[in-house]
């Protein structure tokens, strides 16, 4: 981990990303990204994952294909994304204009004791780009988070993947509901669908 890399505050990044979220649906990868999104306040269109590791981005793809006019944002971590890197290619094949995958990259597995993650050597933005995601960004300045928020809450020309370098501090856990059935019912209701 290079000392020259500027590492952003994860809560500030997510708060800015979701400040003007509008109609967006947000899917959170298990662990700290789920707490980061919860720390911005609970929302009817938050889909909190507490498991299903590796499934966050591709679950968001399923929502995005079903609601092509609604922005869908996956907020996940480097470890969760590494378990589903094939999703980049699956997303690229579908090319949804309303899907943004935001990867909060602290270079470690914070939930399990801070073991180093593969982003020590592997470049997730590069992998996404090489998998066919034309709009693939590496972000290490808050100014670029502004642009990302604008992109994520609107429709683009195709899917976007953003890898945001964040600090390694372990922050207070903000724990949203673990009841997936309740989350399901709430999200569907907010979209005007039946709950079941």
């Amino acid at each position, binding site marked *: 981990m290079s000392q020259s890399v500027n590492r952003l505050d994860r809560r500030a990044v997510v708060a800015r990303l979701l400040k003007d979220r509008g109609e967006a*649906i947000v*899917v959170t990868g298990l662990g700290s990204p789920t707490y980061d999104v919860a720390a911005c306040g609970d929302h009817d269109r938050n*889909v909190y*994952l*507490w*498991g*299903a*590791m*590796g*499934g*966050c981005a*591709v*679950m*968001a*793809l*399923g*929502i*995005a*294909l*079903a*609601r092509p006019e*609604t922005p869908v944002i996956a907020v996940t971590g480097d470890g969760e994304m590494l378990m*589903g890197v*094939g*999703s980049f*290619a*699956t997303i690229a*094949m*579908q090319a949804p204009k309303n899907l943004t995958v935001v990867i909060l990259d602290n270079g470690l597995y914070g939930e399990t004791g801070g073991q180093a993650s593969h982003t020590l050597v592997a470049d997730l933005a590069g992998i996404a780009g090489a998998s066919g995601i034309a709009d693939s960004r590496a972000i290490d300045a808050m100014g670029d988070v502004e642009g990302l928020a604008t992109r994520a809450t609107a429709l683009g020309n195709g899917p976007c993947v953003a890898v945001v370098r964040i600090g390694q501090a372990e922050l207070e856990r903000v724990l949203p509901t673990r009841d*997936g*059935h309740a*989350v*399901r019912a709430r*999200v*569907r209701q907010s*979209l005007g*669908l039946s709950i*079941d």
Partner: protein
Amino acid sequence: MNAAHPHALHASPAGWPGDIFSALKAARVRQVAYVPDGGHADLIRAVHADPAMIGIPLTTEEEGIALVSGAWLGGDRACLLMQSSGVGNCINMLSLVRNMGGPFLTFVTMRGEWGEFNPWQVPMGTSTPDAFRLMGVHVLRADRPEEVGPATAAGIRMAYEGGSAVAVLLAQQLIGAKVFVR
């Protein structure tokens, strides 16, 4: 977008794959995710040719579990096509279906259970129904061509009307053992 397209420029595939295809269309299934299998080839072609459906190739079967769950959260009916070897890849991801509920439907072409030349297919061929049951997925099975339509109808009803998680296993006898040496 979910209504069956009235001017589809394709013909439904022949035989039992056609029975599955027409049942999926009648049920307004829109997202069809798959990891390819020879036994599903005709069905996959028909899905891609149909403007009312989205064919979604996956890099691994577990993606399909998450994708199908997301599709339904967003209001689409979806299903997953795979072969038996892929079922083992899905085990942990099925906790998503257990925790969120909602319909889950998959059609699994069976390998490694009947005259299989490739022994590497046999472990999952043997274990596929147990793997589903371990994770609470109800298992239906069709051994003969005339059983595919009724098993598909039963699966569709249980999943999309009842909100259950259902796997329809399509026996290797339907497809025939793959010929490696001609």
